[in-house]
């Protein structure tokens, strides 16, 4: 440990505001890290041939934050070299091409941050209580992640 060593930090935010990729990458930057990996989820303009107008997200916010915190804990157990982890998720309306989620992880070398980002987004889709309504031109549909842990269980 030298004097520039910082504590590893988790940055978790659910917000109605637009997300900033620059902001998130600055949050996880660390002088002892050579690698930052990010995943950005954006609204697509189509689903099964239907035109998507926008997505609308809602969350059970305090529990969602707690579940994201658990993911951060798991990530640090699996890849102890990891430094900072940021998970920002937008709520409310998210128009086509705008960002709904950003996950960023820093580590001294790249393999840990690359693996951790994949793990974070897979697990977020399986365990974090957030819902997405897909708005088409004349109807809508509540989406269900194929990763959702209980709809995946043997009945």
């Amino acid at each position, binding site marked *: 440990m030298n004097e520039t060593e910082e504590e590893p930090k988790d940055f978790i935010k659910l917000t109605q505001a637009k997300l900033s990729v620059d902001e998130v990458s600055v949050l996880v930057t660390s002088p002892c890290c050579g690698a930052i990996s990010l995943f950005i989820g954006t609204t697509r303009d189509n689903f099964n041939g239907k035109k998507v107008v926008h997505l609308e997200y*809602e969350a059970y916010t305090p529990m969602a934050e707690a579940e994201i915190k658990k993911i951060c804990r798991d990530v640090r157990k699996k890849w102890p070299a990891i430094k900072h982890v940021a998970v920002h998720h937008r709520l409310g309306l998210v128009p086509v091409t705008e960002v709904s989620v950003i996950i960023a992880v820093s580590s001294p070398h790249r393999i840990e941050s690359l693996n951790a980002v994949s793990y974070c987004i897979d697990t*977020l889709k399986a365990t974090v209580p957030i819902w997405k309504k897909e708005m088409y031109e004349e109807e809508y549909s509540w989406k269900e992640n194929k990763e959702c842990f209980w709809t995946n269980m043997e009945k």
Partner: protein
Amino acid sequence: MVVVLYFARSAELAGVRSETVSVPQRITSLQLWDEIVKRRSRLAVLRDQVVFAVRQEYVLLGDQLLVLQSGDEVAIIPPISGG
């Protein structure tokens, strides 16, 4: 008296986002579901898809006994779709 929270499709079907419900202190999660469906019958279609979150921890519908304190938060959690 617990606070029941509804989200996404369960909120649409219930017609409310939260309400206070009087339930036995000791109750299985499946019995709790039946109590809630008695009040909000349109939720019945979600039976095979939902789980609870009790005090913000997931609980599957089944024979698990819940011990509820007054004021506890019980959320109806339809299949998630974040990300």
